Protein backbone atom coordinates (compact mmCIF):
# COMPACT_ATOMS: atom_id res chain seq x y z
CA UNK A 1 0.00 0.00 0.00
CA UNK A 2 1.41 3.39 -1.02
CA UNK A 3 1.64 6.38 1.33
CA UNK A 4 -1.09 8.22 -0.62
CA UNK A 5 -3.43 5.24 -0.17
CA UNK A 6 -2.73 5.33 3.57
CA UNK A 7 -3.60 9.03 3.70
CA UNK A 8 -6.74 8.30 1.65
CA UNK A 9 -7.69 5.62 4.20
CA UNK A 10 -7.28 8.13 7.06
CA UNK A 11 -9.34 10.70 5.14
CA UNK A 12 -12.18 8.23 4.47
CA UNK A 13 -12.16 7.13 8.14
CA UNK A 14 -12.20 10.79 9.23
CA UNK A 15 -15.05 11.58 6.83
CA UNK A 16 -17.08 8.69 8.21
CA UNK A 17 -16.25 9.89 11.74
CA UNK A 18 -17.58 13.32 10.72
CA UNK A 19 -20.71 11.64 9.33
CA UNK A 20 -21.13 9.83 12.65
CA UNK A 21 -20.81 13.11 14.62
CA UNK A 22 -23.23 14.70 12.13
CA UNK A 23 -25.86 12.05 12.92
CA UNK A 24 -25.01 12.21 16.63
CA UNK A 25 -25.17 16.02 16.65
CA UNK A 26 -28.31 16.35 14.51
CA UNK A 27 -30.39 13.56 16.05
CA UNK A 28 -31.87 16.27 18.22
CA UNK A 29 -33.13 18.21 15.22
CA UNK A 30 -35.03 15.21 13.96
CA UNK A 31 -36.46 13.68 17.12
CA UNK A 32 -36.67 16.46 19.73
CA UNK A 33 -40.15 17.62 18.76
CA UNK A 34 -41.54 14.06 18.71
CA UNK A 35 -40.06 13.37 22.14
CA UNK A 36 -41.09 16.64 23.77
CA UNK A 37 -44.74 16.22 22.70
CA UNK A 38 -44.62 12.53 23.75
CA UNK A 39 -45.50 11.37 20.24
CA UNK A 40 -42.77 8.73 20.65
CA UNK A 41 -40.57 7.47 23.44
CA UNK A 42 -36.94 8.64 23.17
CA UNK A 43 -35.52 5.21 22.27
CA UNK A 44 -38.16 4.48 19.62
CA UNK A 45 -37.84 7.99 18.16
CA UNK A 46 -34.07 7.71 17.88
CA UNK A 47 -34.19 4.19 16.36
CA UNK A 48 -36.88 5.24 13.89
CA UNK A 49 -34.86 8.33 12.90
CA UNK A 50 -31.72 6.20 12.43
CA UNK A 51 -33.52 3.83 10.03
CA UNK A 52 -34.99 6.66 7.95
CA UNK A 53 -31.69 8.55 7.89
CA UNK A 54 -30.14 5.41 6.41
CA UNK A 55 -32.89 5.14 3.80
CA UNK A 56 -32.76 8.87 3.00
CA UNK A 57 -29.08 8.70 2.09
CA UNK A 58 -29.97 6.57 -0.95
CA UNK A 59 -32.67 8.84 -2.34
CA UNK A 60 -30.75 11.57 -4.14
CA UNK A 61 -27.18 12.56 -5.06
CA UNK A 62 -27.74 16.21 -6.02
CA UNK A 63 -26.23 17.61 -2.81
CA UNK A 64 -23.18 15.34 -3.05
CA UNK A 65 -22.57 16.68 -6.56
CA UNK A 66 -22.78 20.29 -5.30
CA UNK A 67 -20.29 19.66 -2.48
CA UNK A 68 -17.90 17.84 -4.83
CA UNK A 69 -17.96 20.45 -7.62
CA UNK A 70 -19.31 23.86 -6.60
CA UNK A 71 -17.63 24.84 -3.31
CA UNK A 72 -13.90 24.53 -4.05
CA UNK A 73 -11.96 23.81 -7.23
CA UNK A 74 -11.73 19.98 -7.39
CA UNK A 75 -8.37 20.27 -9.20
CA UNK A 76 -6.82 22.18 -6.28
CA UNK A 77 -7.90 19.59 -3.74
CA UNK A 78 -5.53 17.08 -2.14
CA UNK A 79 -6.36 14.39 0.36
CA UNK A 80 -4.53 16.41 3.05
CA UNK A 81 -6.72 19.46 2.35
CA UNK A 82 -9.86 17.36 2.76
CA UNK A 83 -8.48 15.81 5.93
CA UNK A 84 -7.80 19.29 7.39
CA UNK A 85 -11.31 20.45 6.42
CA UNK A 86 -12.88 17.44 8.08
CA UNK A 87 -10.91 18.03 11.29
CA UNK A 88 -12.15 21.63 11.26
CA UNK A 89 -15.75 20.42 10.97
CA UNK A 90 -15.48 17.65 13.56
CA UNK A 91 -13.77 19.95 16.06
CA UNK A 92 -16.45 22.64 15.70
CA UNK A 93 -19.20 19.98 15.96
CA UNK A 94 -17.69 18.70 19.21
CA UNK A 95 -17.26 22.21 20.63
CA UNK A 96 -20.93 23.08 19.97
CA UNK A 97 -22.02 19.66 21.25
CA UNK A 98 -20.04 20.30 24.44
CA UNK A 99 -21.95 23.53 25.04
CA UNK A 100 -25.31 22.05 23.94
CA UNK A 101 -25.71 24.39 20.96
CA UNK A 102 -27.52 23.16 17.84
CA UNK A 103 -25.12 24.62 15.26
CA UNK A 104 -24.85 23.53 11.62
CA UNK A 105 -22.77 20.43 10.78
CA UNK A 106 -23.13 21.30 7.10
CA UNK A 107 -21.66 24.76 7.42
CA UNK A 108 -18.92 23.33 9.65
CA UNK A 109 -17.99 20.88 6.87
CA UNK A 110 -18.11 23.48 4.10
CA UNK A 111 -16.25 26.01 6.28
CA UNK A 112 -13.54 23.49 7.17
CA UNK A 113 -12.95 22.48 3.54
CA UNK A 114 -12.96 26.11 2.36
CA UNK A 115 -10.49 27.16 5.10
CA UNK A 116 -8.08 24.33 4.35
CA UNK A 117 -8.31 24.95 0.58
CA UNK A 118 -7.70 28.67 1.09
CA UNK A 119 -4.52 28.01 3.08
CA UNK A 120 -3.31 25.24 0.74
CA UNK A 121 -4.08 26.64 -2.70
CA UNK A 122 -5.02 30.29 -2.25
CA UNK A 123 -8.19 32.29 -2.79
CA UNK A 124 -8.52 31.30 -6.46
CA UNK A 125 -9.26 27.69 -5.50
CA UNK A 126 -12.26 28.77 -3.42
CA UNK A 127 -15.32 29.02 -5.67
CA UNK A 128 -16.90 32.17 -4.26
CA UNK A 129 -19.80 32.12 -6.72
CA UNK A 130 -20.67 28.54 -5.84
CA UNK A 131 -20.46 29.22 -2.09
CA UNK A 132 -22.63 32.34 -2.40
CA UNK A 133 -25.19 30.88 -4.80
CA UNK A 134 -25.39 27.29 -3.58
CA UNK A 135 -24.64 27.66 0.14
CA UNK A 136 -24.92 31.13 1.67
CA UNK A 137 -28.05 32.49 0.01
CA UNK A 138 -30.04 29.23 0.38
CA UNK A 139 -28.77 29.15 3.99
CA UNK A 140 -30.33 32.56 4.60
CA UNK A 141 -33.58 31.82 2.78
CA UNK A 142 -34.30 28.28 4.00
CA UNK A 143 -34.74 28.94 7.76
CA UNK A 144 -36.91 31.99 7.03
CA UNK A 145 -38.99 29.87 4.66
CA UNK A 146 -39.34 27.14 7.32
CA UNK A 147 -40.31 29.84 9.85
CA UNK A 148 -43.02 31.20 7.53
CA UNK A 149 -44.33 27.70 6.75
CA UNK A 150 -44.30 26.91 10.50
CA UNK A 151 -46.35 30.05 11.28
CA UNK A 152 -48.86 29.38 8.49
CA UNK A 153 -49.09 25.64 9.24
CA UNK A 154 -49.89 26.11 12.93
CA UNK A 155 -52.42 28.80 11.99
CA UNK A 156 -54.11 26.30 9.63
CA UNK A 157 -54.08 23.58 12.33
CA UNK A 158 -55.62 25.83 14.98
CA UNK A 159 -58.04 27.33 12.42
CA UNK A 160 -59.40 23.92 11.40
CA UNK A 161 -59.26 22.18 14.78
CA UNK A 162 -59.28 24.99 17.36
CA UNK A 163 -62.84 24.31 18.55
CA UNK A 164 -62.48 20.53 18.84
CA UNK A 165 -61.89 18.65 22.10
CA UNK A 166 -58.15 18.74 22.81
CA UNK A 167 -57.75 15.06 23.79
CA UNK A 168 -58.50 13.40 20.42
CA UNK A 169 -56.82 16.24 18.51
CA UNK A 170 -53.60 15.85 20.53
CA UNK A 171 -53.64 12.08 19.97
CA UNK A 172 -54.22 12.67 16.27
CA UNK A 173 -51.31 15.07 15.95
CA UNK A 174 -49.07 12.68 17.89
CA UNK A 175 -49.90 10.09 15.24
CA UNK A 176 -49.23 12.74 12.60
CA UNK A 177 -45.82 13.34 14.13
CA UNK A 178 -44.90 9.74 13.38
CA UNK A 179 -45.33 10.66 9.69
CA UNK A 180 -43.82 14.16 9.84
CA UNK A 181 -40.93 12.98 12.05
CA UNK A 182 -40.24 10.13 9.62
CA UNK A 183 -40.20 12.54 6.69
CA UNK A 184 -37.86 14.82 8.60
CA UNK A 185 -35.45 11.94 9.29
CA UNK A 186 -35.62 10.95 5.63
CA UNK A 187 -34.94 14.56 4.63
CA UNK A 188 -31.97 14.74 6.99
CA UNK A 189 -30.52 11.59 5.42
CA UNK A 190 -30.94 12.97 1.90
CA UNK A 191 -29.20 16.27 2.65
CA UNK A 192 -26.61 15.53 5.33
CA UNK A 193 -25.32 12.05 4.42
CA UNK A 194 -24.70 13.35 0.91
CA UNK A 195 -22.24 15.98 2.14
CA UNK A 196 -19.97 13.25 3.42
CA UNK A 197 -20.43 11.32 0.18
CA UNK A 198 -19.36 14.46 -1.71
CA UNK A 199 -16.25 14.88 0.44
CA UNK A 200 -15.18 11.22 0.13
CA UNK A 201 -15.75 11.44 -3.63
CA UNK A 202 -13.52 14.54 -3.74
CA UNK A 203 -10.81 12.62 -1.83
CA UNK A 204 -11.05 9.66 -4.23
CA UNK A 205 -10.71 12.04 -7.20
CA UNK A 206 -7.78 13.84 -5.56
CA UNK A 207 -6.03 10.52 -4.98
CA UNK A 208 -6.63 9.43 -8.57
CA UNK A 209 -8.71 6.47 -7.41
CA UNK A 210 -11.65 7.50 -9.62
CA UNK A 211 -12.05 9.83 -12.61
CA UNK A 212 -13.09 13.43 -11.98
CA UNK A 213 -16.44 12.85 -13.72
CA UNK A 214 -17.14 9.50 -12.04
CA UNK A 215 -20.38 8.73 -10.21
CA UNK A 216 -20.37 8.45 -6.41
CA UNK A 217 -19.29 4.82 -5.78
CA UNK A 218 -21.87 2.53 -4.16
CA UNK A 219 -19.59 1.66 -1.22
CA UNK A 220 -19.34 5.38 -0.45
CA UNK A 221 -23.15 5.71 -0.37
CA UNK A 222 -23.58 2.62 1.83
CA UNK A 223 -20.81 3.56 4.29
CA UNK A 224 -21.99 7.20 4.59
CA UNK A 225 -25.59 6.06 5.14
CA UNK A 226 -24.45 3.58 7.80
CA UNK A 227 -22.26 6.12 9.64
CA UNK A 228 -24.98 8.79 9.86
CA UNK A 229 -27.57 6.20 10.92
CA UNK A 230 -25.25 4.86 13.64
CA UNK A 231 -24.51 8.39 14.86
CA UNK A 232 -28.22 9.18 14.90
CA UNK A 233 -28.96 6.04 16.90
CA UNK A 234 -26.27 6.90 19.42
CA UNK A 235 -27.96 10.27 19.85
CA UNK A 236 -26.96 13.68 21.13
CA UNK A 237 -29.22 13.93 24.16
CA UNK A 238 -28.08 17.33 25.37
CA UNK A 239 -29.03 19.04 22.10
CA UNK A 240 -32.36 17.17 22.12
CA UNK A 241 -33.09 19.02 25.36
CA UNK A 242 -32.25 22.45 23.90
CA UNK A 243 -34.19 21.83 20.69
CA UNK A 244 -37.17 20.08 22.27
CA UNK A 245 -37.89 22.23 25.31
CA UNK A 246 -35.77 25.35 25.50
CA UNK A 247 -36.78 27.22 22.32
CA UNK A 248 -40.53 26.78 22.86
CA UNK A 249 -42.68 24.50 25.00
CA UNK A 250 -44.70 22.91 22.25
CA UNK A 251 -47.92 20.97 21.88
CA UNK A 252 -48.43 18.12 19.41
CA UNK A 253 -49.92 20.39 16.71
CA UNK A 254 -46.87 22.67 16.90
CA UNK A 255 -44.57 19.63 16.75
CA UNK A 256 -46.38 18.38 13.64
CA UNK A 257 -46.26 21.83 12.00
CA UNK A 258 -42.57 22.35 12.80
CA UNK A 259 -41.57 18.92 11.50
CA UNK A 260 -43.73 19.29 8.38
CA UNK A 261 -42.22 22.71 7.62
CA UNK A 262 -38.66 21.40 8.10
CA UNK A 263 -39.23 18.25 6.03
CA UNK A 264 -40.85 20.19 3.16
CA UNK A 265 -38.00 22.70 2.91
CA UNK A 266 -35.16 20.16 3.26
CA UNK A 267 -36.60 17.59 0.84
CA UNK A 268 -37.30 20.24 -1.80
CA UNK A 269 -33.83 21.77 -1.35
CA UNK A 270 -32.17 18.35 -1.62
CA UNK A 271 -34.06 17.85 -4.89
CA UNK A 272 -32.47 21.03 -6.27
CA UNK A 273 -29.00 20.25 -4.85
CA UNK A 274 -28.80 22.93 -2.13
CA UNK A 275 -26.63 21.71 0.80
CA UNK A 276 -28.68 23.26 3.60
CA UNK A 277 -28.13 23.39 7.30
CA UNK A 278 -30.84 21.03 8.47
CA UNK A 279 -30.33 22.42 11.98
CA UNK A 280 -31.17 25.96 10.89
CA UNK A 281 -34.20 24.84 8.90
CA UNK A 282 -35.68 22.76 11.70
CA UNK A 283 -35.05 25.48 14.28
CA UNK A 284 -36.80 27.91 11.89
CA UNK A 285 -39.80 25.57 11.74
CA UNK A 286 -39.86 25.20 15.55
CA UNK A 287 -39.70 28.97 16.06
CA UNK A 288 -42.41 29.50 13.41
CA UNK A 289 -44.73 26.98 15.07
CA UNK A 290 -44.14 28.79 18.37
CA UNK A 291 -44.52 32.31 17.01
CA UNK A 292 -47.71 31.30 15.14
CA UNK A 293 -49.35 30.60 18.50
CA UNK A 294 -47.98 33.76 20.14
CA UNK A 295 -44.70 35.60 19.70
CA UNK A 296 -43.84 35.44 23.39
CA UNK A 297 -43.98 31.60 23.24
CA UNK A 298 -40.53 31.64 21.62
CA UNK A 299 -37.61 32.05 24.01
CA UNK A 300 -35.85 34.58 21.83
CA UNK A 301 -32.75 34.59 24.06
CA UNK A 302 -32.12 30.92 23.30
CA UNK A 303 -32.89 31.53 19.63
CA UNK A 304 -30.36 34.41 19.65
CA UNK A 305 -27.64 32.17 21.11
CA UNK A 306 -28.30 29.62 18.36
CA UNK A 307 -28.03 32.35 15.72
CA UNK A 308 -24.68 33.44 17.16
CA UNK A 309 -23.43 29.82 16.98
CA UNK A 310 -24.56 29.65 13.34
CA UNK A 311 -22.80 32.90 12.46
CA UNK A 312 -19.59 31.63 14.05
CA UNK A 313 -19.72 28.19 12.41
CA UNK A 314 -18.37 28.97 8.91
CA UNK A 315 -15.44 31.19 10.02
CA UNK A 316 -14.58 29.07 13.07
CA UNK A 317 -14.53 25.78 11.14
CA UNK A 318 -12.60 27.49 8.33
CA UNK A 319 -10.00 28.77 10.81
CA UNK A 320 -9.60 25.33 12.43
CA UNK A 321 -9.42 23.68 8.98
CA UNK A 322 -6.76 26.15 7.83
CA UNK A 323 -4.75 25.73 11.02
CA UNK A 324 -4.95 21.94 10.73
CA UNK A 325 -3.62 22.16 7.17
CA UNK A 326 -0.65 24.22 8.39
CA UNK A 327 0.12 21.57 11.05
CA UNK A 328 -0.18 18.62 8.63
CA UNK A 329 1.96 20.48 6.11
CA UNK A 330 4.80 20.73 8.65
CA UNK A 331 5.01 16.93 8.90
CA UNK A 332 5.64 15.09 5.61
CA UNK A 333 3.41 12.32 4.21
CA UNK A 334 1.23 10.28 6.47
CA UNK A 335 2.81 11.53 9.72
CA UNK A 336 0.84 14.81 9.84
CA UNK A 337 -2.66 13.33 9.41
CA UNK A 338 -1.81 10.50 11.85
CA UNK A 339 -0.54 12.91 14.47
CA UNK A 340 -3.56 15.22 14.12
CA UNK A 341 -5.92 12.20 14.29
CA UNK A 342 -4.33 10.95 17.50
CA UNK A 343 -4.38 14.40 19.14
CA UNK A 344 -7.99 14.90 17.95
CA UNK A 345 -9.09 11.53 19.35
CA UNK A 346 -7.42 12.34 22.67
CA UNK A 347 -9.12 15.75 22.92
CA UNK A 348 -12.51 14.28 21.93
CA UNK A 349 -12.17 11.56 24.60
CA UNK A 350 -11.23 14.21 27.20
CA UNK A 351 -14.28 16.30 26.23
CA UNK A 352 -16.57 13.24 26.56
CA UNK A 353 -15.17 12.33 29.98
CA UNK A 354 -15.42 15.91 31.24
CA UNK A 355 -18.98 16.26 29.96
CA UNK A 356 -20.07 12.94 31.48
CA UNK A 357 -18.58 13.96 34.84
CA UNK A 358 -20.18 17.39 34.83
CA UNK A 359 -23.58 16.21 33.53
CA UNK A 360 -25.58 19.21 32.32
CA UNK A 361 -24.15 21.29 29.47
CA UNK A 362 -23.49 24.97 29.79
CA UNK A 363 -27.04 26.28 29.35
CA UNK A 364 -27.95 27.70 25.96
CA UNK A 365 -30.06 30.43 27.57
Amino acid sequence: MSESDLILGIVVATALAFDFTNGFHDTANVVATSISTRAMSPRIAVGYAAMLNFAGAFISLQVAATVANDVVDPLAITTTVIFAGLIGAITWNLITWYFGLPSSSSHALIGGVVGATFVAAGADAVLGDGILGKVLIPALIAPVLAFVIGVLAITICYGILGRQRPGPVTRGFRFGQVISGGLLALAHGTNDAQKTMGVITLALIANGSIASDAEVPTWVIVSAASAIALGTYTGGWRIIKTMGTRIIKMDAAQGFSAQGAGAAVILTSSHFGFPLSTTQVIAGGVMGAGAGKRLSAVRWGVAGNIVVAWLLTLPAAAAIGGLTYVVTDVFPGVVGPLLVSLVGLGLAAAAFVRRVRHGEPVPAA
Partner: protein
Amino acid sequence: MIATVVDTTALWETAVYSLIAGLGVTAIFSLALLGATRMSEATRDGRSATAALYAAVAVIGLLGTAGAVVGGVIVMTSK
Protein backbone atom coordinates in the same frame (compact mmCIF):
# COMPACT_ATOMS: atom_id res chain seq x y z
CA MET B 1 -24.19 40.42 -9.41
CA ILE B 2 -26.10 38.14 -7.07
CA ALA B 3 -28.65 37.37 -9.78
CA THR B 4 -25.91 35.93 -11.99
CA VAL B 5 -24.52 33.74 -9.21
CA VAL B 6 -27.77 32.44 -7.79
CA ASP B 7 -30.01 29.99 -9.62
CA THR B 8 -33.09 32.08 -8.93
CA THR B 9 -35.40 29.67 -10.76
CA ALA B 10 -34.34 26.76 -8.55
CA LEU B 11 -34.59 28.90 -5.41
CA TRP B 12 -38.03 30.17 -6.39
CA GLU B 13 -39.23 26.64 -7.17
CA THR B 14 -37.84 25.44 -3.84
CA ALA B 15 -39.82 28.13 -2.01
CA VAL B 16 -43.06 27.48 -3.90
CA TYR B 17 -42.94 23.67 -3.69
CA SER B 18 -41.97 23.80 -0.01
CA LEU B 19 -44.93 26.05 0.75
CA ILE B 20 -47.36 23.89 -1.23
CA ALA B 21 -46.08 20.65 0.33
CA GLY B 22 -45.77 21.94 3.90
CA LEU B 23 -49.11 23.72 4.03
CA GLY B 24 -50.95 21.23 1.82
CA VAL B 25 -50.09 18.21 3.96
CA THR B 26 -50.87 20.15 7.15
CA ALA B 27 -54.28 21.23 5.84
CA ILE B 28 -55.22 17.77 4.53
CA PHE B 29 -54.13 16.03 7.73
CA SER B 30 -55.97 18.60 9.88
CA LEU B 31 -59.13 17.96 7.85
CA ALA B 32 -58.66 14.22 8.41
CA LEU B 33 -58.47 14.84 12.17
CA LEU B 34 -61.51 17.12 12.01
CA GLY B 35 -63.42 14.36 10.21
CA ALA B 36 -62.35 11.77 12.78
CA THR B 37 -63.28 13.84 15.85
CA ARG B 38 -66.62 14.98 14.41
CA MET B 39 -67.39 11.41 13.29
CA SER B 40 -66.83 10.17 16.81
CA GLU B 41 -69.17 12.87 18.24
CA ALA B 42 -71.84 12.19 15.61
CA THR B 43 -71.68 8.44 16.25
CA ARG B 44 -72.05 9.03 19.98
CA ASP B 45 -75.10 11.24 19.34
CA GLY B 46 -76.67 8.63 17.04
CA ARG B 47 -76.44 10.79 13.88
CA SER B 48 -75.32 8.04 11.52
CA ALA B 49 -75.62 9.96 8.23
CA THR B 50 -73.49 12.82 9.59
CA ALA B 51 -71.05 10.30 11.05
CA ALA B 52 -70.70 8.63 7.63
CA LEU B 53 -70.04 12.01 6.02
CA TYR B 54 -67.30 12.87 8.52
CA ALA B 55 -65.86 9.36 8.20
CA ALA B 56 -65.52 9.99 4.47
CA VAL B 57 -63.73 13.30 5.19
CA ALA B 58 -61.36 11.50 7.58
CA VAL B 59 -60.59 8.70 5.10
CA ILE B 60 -60.09 11.10 2.18
CA GLY B 61 -57.83 13.26 4.37
CA LEU B 62 -55.72 10.32 5.48
CA LEU B 63 -55.44 8.98 1.93
CA GLY B 64 -54.53 12.47 0.72
CA THR B 65 -51.80 12.74 3.36
CA ALA B 66 -50.40 9.33 2.48
CA GLY B 67 -50.57 10.17 -1.23
CA ALA B 68 -48.73 13.47 -0.72
CA VAL B 69 -45.97 11.76 1.28
CA VAL B 70 -45.51 8.92 -1.22
CA GLY B 71 -45.70 11.35 -4.15
CA GLY B 72 -43.03 13.55 -2.58
CA VAL B 73 -40.66 10.63 -2.10
CA ILE B 74 -41.25 9.46 -5.70
CA VAL B 75 -40.42 12.96 -7.00
CA MET B 76 -37.23 12.92 -4.92
CA THR B 77 -36.11 9.53 -6.23
CA SER B 78 -36.97 10.28 -9.85
CA LYS B 79 -34.25 12.93 -10.36
